[in-house]
């Protein structure tokens, strides 16, 4: 690990101004991802700006839904009575992630910003375009090791089947973000040029030719909070995470389902998948298909088929072409079960 400067800030304003002075500065939240990346020299910051003292950990009810502060710990969000009552899908997704110890440290903002778990990204002896982008002018700390995509033609069991590029087939690893994507959350950020709100679906991005960019946050911007609009999904939510062991493993495929049911009919529905793309993958076509339909296995199968449009395997991850639709069906069955 290189030597770096360390600054602690107590206001969002100070955080934003601190990060904007000089390159190679990173916010430090729970540190559960950033510190690992520093130890592996995947990221080599010159300066850490510790934002743990920012007053951004509140979870509150607003006129339009829930607002969750960026510094709220993953465990605190999962345990929040408000969250459990109004957006249980978020609790389920959070509890499916990492381990209790990690969730106690991890924050909402950090979880959104966590980097991919692709092994080639983590190993500076192996090629990775995300870690070592070809373009000049990228972050100084991101030019470690050979370029290329090691995962294409390599060990890619965990990798994307949607929206990947010839430069990168990594997936975004977060569980929490699948729930937030499904629930139409918005992200409130504050930056050198002021505040703005980003729809969750636009927050993360596909790799294209610039896989070094995971999201659309601009330099110097700080995530302040996440808003989740009021919904009618609380009674029929399910987060299915298929993984290699029962806990403490990233998703092979995960599915977040939130349904508004009237008897057997699906009034409204939200569907998102994890472990399949560089961003949380919303299943808009499947949602449209299911709206107004009855909750039958035949309909679920049809929806799952629609959801798989454009899917492409890369060898070891071909099984996801089966696992993904099956998981959609399984999750829909569970979510639409009437108590």
């Amino acid at each position, binding site marked *: 690990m290189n030597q770096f400067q360390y600054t602690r800030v107590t206001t969002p304003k100070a955080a934003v101004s601190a990060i904007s002075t000089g390159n190679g500065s990173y916010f430090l939240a729970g540190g559960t991802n950033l510190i690992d990346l520093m130890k592996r020299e995947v990221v080599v910051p010159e300066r850490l700006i510790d934002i743990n003292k920012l007053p951004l950990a509140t979870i509150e009810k607003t006129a339009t839904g829930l607002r969750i502060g960026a510094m709220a710990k993953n465990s605190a969000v999962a345990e929040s009575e408000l969250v459990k009552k109004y957006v249980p899908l978020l609790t389920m997704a959070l509890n499916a992630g990492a381990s209790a110890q990690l969730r106690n440290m991890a924050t909402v903002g950090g979880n959104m910003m966590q980097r991919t778990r692709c*092994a080639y990204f983590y*190993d500076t002896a192996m090629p990775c375009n995300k870690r070592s982008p070809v373009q000049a002018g990228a972050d100084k700390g991101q030019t470690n090791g050979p370029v290329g995509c*090691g995962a294409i033609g390599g*060990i890619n069991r965990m990798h994307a089947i949607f929206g990947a590029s010839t430069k990168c087939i990594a997936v975004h690893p977060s569980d929490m973000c699948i729930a937030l994507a499904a629930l139409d959350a918005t992200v409130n950020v504050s930056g050198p040029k002021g505040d703005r709100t980003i729809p969750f679906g636009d927050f993360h991005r596909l790799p294209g030719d610039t896989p070094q960019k995971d999201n659309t946050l601009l330099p110097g911007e700080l995530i302040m909070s996440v808003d989740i609009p009021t919904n009618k999904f609380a009674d029929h939510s399910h987060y299915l995470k298929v993984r*290699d*062991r029962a*806990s403490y493993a990233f998703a092979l495929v995960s599915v977040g389902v939130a349904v508004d049911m009237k008897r057997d009919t699906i009034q409204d529905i939200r569907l998102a998948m994890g472990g399949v793309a560089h961003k949380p993958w919303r299943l808009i076509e499947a949602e449209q298909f299911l709206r107004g339909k009855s909750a039958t296995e035949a309909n679920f199968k049809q929806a799952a088929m629609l959801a798989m449009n454009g899917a492409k395997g890369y060898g070891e991850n071909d099984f996801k072409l*089966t696992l993904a639709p099956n*998981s959609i069906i*399984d999750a829909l069955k569970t979510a639409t079960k009437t108590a």
Partner: protein
Amino acid sequence: MTKDTKNPPIDRVDGRLKVTGGANYFADFELPNMAYCVLVGSEVGRGTITSLDTKKAQGAPGVLGVFTHQNMPPIPGWDAPVGGEADGPAPKPKREETYRILSSPKILFDGQPIAIVVADSFERATYAASLVKATYNKQAARTELEKHLSEGVAPKGADGGNYLRGKADAYQSAPVRLEANYTIPIEVHNPMELHGILAHWTASDKLMIYAKTQGVNATQQAMAQAFKLDPKNIHVHTEFMGGGFGMGLRTWPQETAVVAVARKIGRPLKLVVTRSQMFTLVGHRPYTVQTINMGADTNGKLVGLAHAATAETASYEDFTEATVNMTKFMYDCPNVSTRYRIVRLDRSVPIWMRGPGEATGAFALESAMDEMAHKLNLDPIEFRLRNYTETDPEHNRPYSSKNLKEAYQRGADAIGWSNRKNEPGSQREGDWLIGYGMSTGVFSAFRWEASARALLKADSSLTIQSAVTDIGPGTGTALTIIAHNVLGVPLNQIKVEYGDTSLPKAPTQGGSAIVSAVGSAVFDACTAVKKQLTELAIKEGGSLAGRQADELIIADGVLSVEKEPRKKVALSELMRANNLTVIDKSADSKGGSEQSKYSMYSFSVHFVQVRVNPLTGVVRVSKAVSVADSGRIVSPKTAASQMIGGVAGGIGMALTEEASIDHRFGRFVNNNLGDYHVAVHADVPAIETIMIDKPDPIINPMGAKGMGEIALIGFAGAVANAVFNATGQRVRDLPITPDKLLRKLT
């Protein structure tokens, strides 16, 4: 002889130390003026270092030295072959490679140390290590066993890797036949405690070592050879070990290198390897490909059996294990052949891992038994019973004891085997398929040479000493119980000292042999103490004068006449009366001629119930029952813990554990505990352990056989068999991950 009674389930004697931080593991030791070192690993799997830049590292804060093949201090004993070779020197290596750490620019495996960076703190050494930069003349690393199966060589040994009883191809003419291939991936021991060593030259020819070794005497011997020292001048201490599972069964080259560098810098030097180095520097269970050919008649009687295994080893050292052995003697079959080969790859050398060889072989054999039972439409237990053997068909001699039939029965009752349906895929609970599976495990019951000392003090407290390391199974607890049984000293007045070369010599802890070996020595030493006590009591003028030795019993610190309990004398009183402050007896113990008259094995049977999600291919072990037939159980509580630990490891082996290599680079992609999946709590159901607990009349005075290995051996097969029962799909490549099962289910 001790009375033939079951032993008390006492708590682990060192439990409190362990949970309060009072137990010192090698890395806990801090010495004045101690320095720290970090290993820099090669980033290529085969090739030659063309340049090595250590300037920056040398100039980094706190750095005391950077050692590479260019300036490594010599290791005097390394002109001769290095100690610890798994099975003796190779017969005729096809490729003449030797691996002498930091002696040449040649790279033989990914992660091979190319520099040792020494600094005044671990953090500074770590930072400086990151500044060492190498360039390589890279060659393609041959790391994929499947691509090199034809290059298998026969290992050294009496049978040259081949065994034959009857006709080799008898299975071919049997009415019911099975041919199947089974694969197990690289598994890494991954105990919680990282490997390493702390070396301290206390004089120019005197060495103190704190190490992570399963045998302090073996480490002493290896270092004596490497540094041409009198073993007496080398003191090795390993009282506690945070899990070994086999990785500490030899002295690794980097340990020797640390000792050499410590001498050079003139300071105590500590190495703790990183988690990713645990994948390349301290061995692993070798990737192994197996083929079973089996033939049976329509009555379910085995006609012929052939088992072939090919495993990876390093280019520079042959590692072999007993992968195909179980097939030779497990079942009554007139025609059996086995074949074992190793392939030398550009990989670091494997080492035994819990249930070494047999765990790999049992997966294949016991899966095949299940497959054949299915073909015969027989219950898998019934099929095994039809081929049950009361004598060892390999050596044509009796077993010292075998209660496997009882084990089948009790395990079957406990899991609810009668709920199993022979028709696969026929049981459901909601959306989940339910299946039951079972498998047998077996491992040699050894009795190696060992020494121990017993010191009974006048306050009637007892100290037991032996150099043996306790790697966690509860050795101290078992030895306490054995001493208690012989001498009747209350359990809380017995102290066991172990894990240090200043104590009587003991074998390396491994092979499930310690209770048998060291336990026998303790038994003998305590028996000698008892003999002296008895003689003192019955001699003329003694408190029990005129009595015969065999009339007396010893319990609760009192020697008494069995039939007249009021005729008695306290041990402390007896010693005082004879002006003795201590009775000090040592014993060297080993087996005798019975070793060649009997076949000695511990047996286990594992039963599992699994739930399989047919849509996602997810498998969950929902019930597990493991039965041990390993003689008299000396320490019931720690023995049960052993079984539970074995099952947890078995679930990992069956469902989750695999170290994956990207063969294009010859490099691991999941060399950390986040991505290498050992089973976690959520994967492990409540485990029922059953001990047959019948003494073996032959093996040793306690009647105890080992049980560390059988806890794991066979378990993976039971899971694979249960998955088949649940789904009708057979996965022959471990681990059974959702992707593999899904490919078959859809």
